[in-house]
């Protein structure tokens, strides 16, 4: 029997050395939904994806994926779980020594015994879904940023995963590519019957396509709700974030001594 939630964070904390990144995160991702994790740069969003994939282990609490506690899995169990996950990395992370076709075919060749003719059909189907069937013979260095992201997306869904994770899918894209990627995330999720987690700080694109939003700041979840609830929210952080205000709960200034003291205007001799 499987629960309604594909991914659950139960009071998860994580620290790099002594520097705490996540402090007691509770989060649920229901099956079939597209959920966004939003927050400023360096607030621990990507760390959450790495915890789900088991690349790092929580120092406290547990991450549950498909009713399995990720930390308790051995190497085989972890690899088995990862075969049913797809991940889109920030800048695509395409294998630079392989063509677009071979990139998308990579997992099929590694994990299945499918004959090459079947792999060819599958790869062309995946590439067609992202509109790049004609680019199959190009090398990653010949692709624009938006195209590379789409190829990476085709590669991430190559084995029809149950969970697709996106790490900053919108970063550094032009407005057209932005809309294309946003729509693809939604369409692929619904077509594959998958569940998606989008880590992003791009407010407008993501609020338009997701079902639920978690706001992370300084290692804790400060707000969560549907996009409508978030737009209407009067919580200071959410308001600052959604409207892109310069100063607020997230200060403009990096912590420092007072301006007067730094400029030595306080009457003391330098």
């Amino acid at each position, binding site marked *: 029997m499987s629960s309604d939630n594909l991914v659950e964070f139960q009071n998860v904390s994580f620290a790099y050395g002594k520097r705490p990144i996540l402090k007691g995160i509770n989060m649920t991702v229901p099956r079939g939904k597209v959920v966004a994790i939003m927050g400023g740069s360096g607030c621990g969003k990507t760390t959450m994806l790495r915890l789900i*994939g088991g*690349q790092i282990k929580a120092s406290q609490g547990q991450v549950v994926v498909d009713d399995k506690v990720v930390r308790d899995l051995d190497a085989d169990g972890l*690899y*088995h779980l*990862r*075969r049913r*996950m797809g*991940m889109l*990395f*920030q*800048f695509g*992370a*395409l*294998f*630079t*020594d392989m063509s677009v076709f071979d990139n998308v075919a*990579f*997992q099929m060749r*590694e*994990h299945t015994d499918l004959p090459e003719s079947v792999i060819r059909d599958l790869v062309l189907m995946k590439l067609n879904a992202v509109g790049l069937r004609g680019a199959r013979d190009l090398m990653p260095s010949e692709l624009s940023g938006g195209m590379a992201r789409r190829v990476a997306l085709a590669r991430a869904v190559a084995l029809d995963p149950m969970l697709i994770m996106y790490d900053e899918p919108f970063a550094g894209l032009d407005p057209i590519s932005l809309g294309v990627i946003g729509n693809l995330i939604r369409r692929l999720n619904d077509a594959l019957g998958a569940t998606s987690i989008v880590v992003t700080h791009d407010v407008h694109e993501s609020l338009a396509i997701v079902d639920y939003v978690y706001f992370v700041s300084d290692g804790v979840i400060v707000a969560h709700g549907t996009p409508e609830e978030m737009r209407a929210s009067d919580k200071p952080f959410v308001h600052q974030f959604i409207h892109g205000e310069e100063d607020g709960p997230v200060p403009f200034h990096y912590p420092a001594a007072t301006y007067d003291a730094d400029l030595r205007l306080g009457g003391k001799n330098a």
Partner: protein
Amino acid sequence: MTQTCDWGVKMPSRIVKAVRRVGARVVDGVWRFGVASRFLFLTLVYSGTSFRRLHLIIKEIFSTGVLSLIIILVSGLFVGMVLGMQGYDTLQRYGASESLGVMVALSLVRELGPVVAALLFASRAGSAITAEIGLMKATEQLSAMEMMAVNPIARVVAPRFWAGVISMPLLAAMFSAMGVFGGYLVGVKLIGVDEGAFWSQMQNAVDFQQDIVNGVIKSFVFGVAVTAIALFEGYDAPPTAEGVSGATTRTVVTSSLAILALDFVLTAFMFRGEG
């Protein structure tokens, strides 16, 4: 200023700091050596995939071995030609210029072939391996592979390791062959040493077991060392531009030193006072 060190002795703080720095460097070095050994061990453990899928190794042999051919062959030719000139100059003083072939062949097969070829291999192929793996890490390609449930050590590191280990003895052999040819060109064709003596004395003096096999063993050991260092430095590189460039430099420096040190040790074992 004085400072109390860990044993309660008062010492000038400059000295304490210096000793601490040295200590930290040594501990760091030993630590890294341990991590590198573990990395090599894992590479061997996960080598199964590369041998089941030989085309992975063959592709890497092309980029490490075949693409290093030109520099190896040209260098071998010049080293052999220089040996021919210098050797003739020295040998004719003792009236032994017919032994030129022996001198050229033994120097190359025993020492210069494996060592110089390995040094060239370290700077041509080793640095390329480090830069490639370092960049794959920096652009999250290795991380992406892990998330696709493919072990990067099995898929990326192991094939390159075996490609290097297979290529190195072959390159050293070609270096030596080219060098002998260079020595022949200068010694026989240019200077006029007797051709028959050149080849027949060489054939009599070069021993298969003692010279050829030992030379191959050397180049094999150098191949393991250079490739393992290059792979480890790339895999361990900080994922930044400075990180990768620093790692590439370290590969060339460390593997060159390793080659020369290992050569001394191996020579001491192979040729102690015999012949």
